[in-house]
């Protein structure tokens, strides 16, 4: 997926996208070893990985947690921040985000949303998977509702409202089916 230019922000970052015993710096480097390897793979440029990670945090406006301790020692919110910063550090054509703001404080949440919008504005496609209707309505160009694994509806936010969406999400049939 990395090679196709897609970024993936998972729901459980620690178990799904990070190596718990490695530091954030190492997690940054190992995510894209091709980029950070030197001399035909003999060495890893951890310093550049660190700077890239720091820069990504700056761009996203999030406060950086310690980068040199094992990532599993960070709080859940911090881990999520690191993963997001890592994923959004490189230019991507597609971002798939699973509940990206889950567990984040207000400041980080706004920052993440702003970043996602910025990426959207620069032409990047974003698939945002979430159950936070406010978030979805405020950010999405299009909404797709899934119920029991099937697509239950496909709208533009202006065309519908949260109540109807809520119904579709829980299986009650809405007006337009």
């Amino acid at each position, binding site marked *: 997926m990395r090679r196709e230019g897609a970024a993936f922000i998972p729901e459980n970052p620690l178990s799904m996208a990070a190596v718990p015993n490695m530091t954030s710096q190492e997690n940054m480097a*190992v995510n894209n070893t091709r980029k950070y390897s030197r001399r035909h793979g003999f060495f890893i440029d951890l310093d550049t990985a660190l700077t890239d990670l720091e820069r990504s945090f700056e761009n996203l406006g999030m406060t950086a947690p310690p980068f*040199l301790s094992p990532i599993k020692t960070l709080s859940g919110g911090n881990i999520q921040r690191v993963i997001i910063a890592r994923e959004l550090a490189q230019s991507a054509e597609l971002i798939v985000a699973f509940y990206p703001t889950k567990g984040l404080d207000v400041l980080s949440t706004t920052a993440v949303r702003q970043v996602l919008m910025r990426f959207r504005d620069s032409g990047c496609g974003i698939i945002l998977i979430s159950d936070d209707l406010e978030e979805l309505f405020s950010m999405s160009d299009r909404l797709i509702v899934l119920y029991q694994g099937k697509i239950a509806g496909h709208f533009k936010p202006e065309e519908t409202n949260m109540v109807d969406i809520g119904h579709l999400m829980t299986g009650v049939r809405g007006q337009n089916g």
Partner: protein
Amino acid sequence: MDNKLGSLLKVPTSKKNMAETLLRYLVIILFTFTVFGLVLFIAGKNPIRAYADTFTSIFGSFYGFSELWVQMIPIMLTAVAVALPSKINLINVGGEGQLFMGGWLATWAALTFQGLPKVIFIPVLMLFGFLGGALWAAIPGLLKAKKLVNETISTLLLNFIAPLIISLSVFGPWRSAESAAYPQTPAFVDAARLPVIPGTRIHLGFIFAIVALILFWFFMKYTKWGLEIRAIGGNPEAAERMGIRLQWYILIVLCIGGGIAGLAGMAEVTAIHGRLRIGLSQGYGYKGFLLSWITGGSPIGILLMAFVFAVITSVGDTLQITQGVPYAVINILFSLILFVVLAKPVLKGKKK
């Protein structure tokens, strides 16, 4: 800068930590020797005398002391053969078989390319030794990579098959005509023998082992592949998602490990024996396994523990000669150490 130093020395190198670890192991070893002494006592033997005799034989003569280092060579190599795959959570118990097959293929090369000058011959033999072990490990490697057979069992089973292949060759096509009574190959030409330190049996293999340990340490810490291997070991799912090829690493890592064990076999065959015999290994593969597990696959730990293992082996020899105790009892010592090491950590929330 603090960050840089911290990132370079990730392993607990604070003096306090290292001292703690050393102390811990010292206590474990002392405890184990005591328990073993008790076992001997219950069996009607004299442990004090055994330990004392061992001490005199090790430190009483230059040769006795040098033998310790000779013993360390094959087990350090086979320990790396186990330690490397263990970094991606693979359990390679096949060091024994890989050692045998390395020795076997090196023997073939030694018997076939007899005209070569030493300077070329030795590297050629090293190559074949490595290849023999690597190919033997490729079988379980493929089986595991394709998710067909668990590597612990497959490497174990192959351990039983390898010595039979040796027997087959030694009793058959490679049998030396001279020693009709004892099955072995003809002696290797001098160019095929590894140099030794005069007056001892310490051979070039010691350098192999040290180099292997250093390379292993360096590889894991500084190279891209080491990083990826650690990622697989830490979280294989995440590693795969990051684009790291699991199957590839499973195969490669087992093959390299097997190759290193094969080198141990080559060293035994060319340095110690100078020919291929049935009694090529004294459980070196298994000792390497225990060594790696006791030390958690740490290169420096392997080096230090190998010395302890060599001492234990000496205890075994002494017991056998002076008190008629079977050599195999040293397995009690080895396994007790590992037993205690395994019993220590209570991992919270960790599966398996």
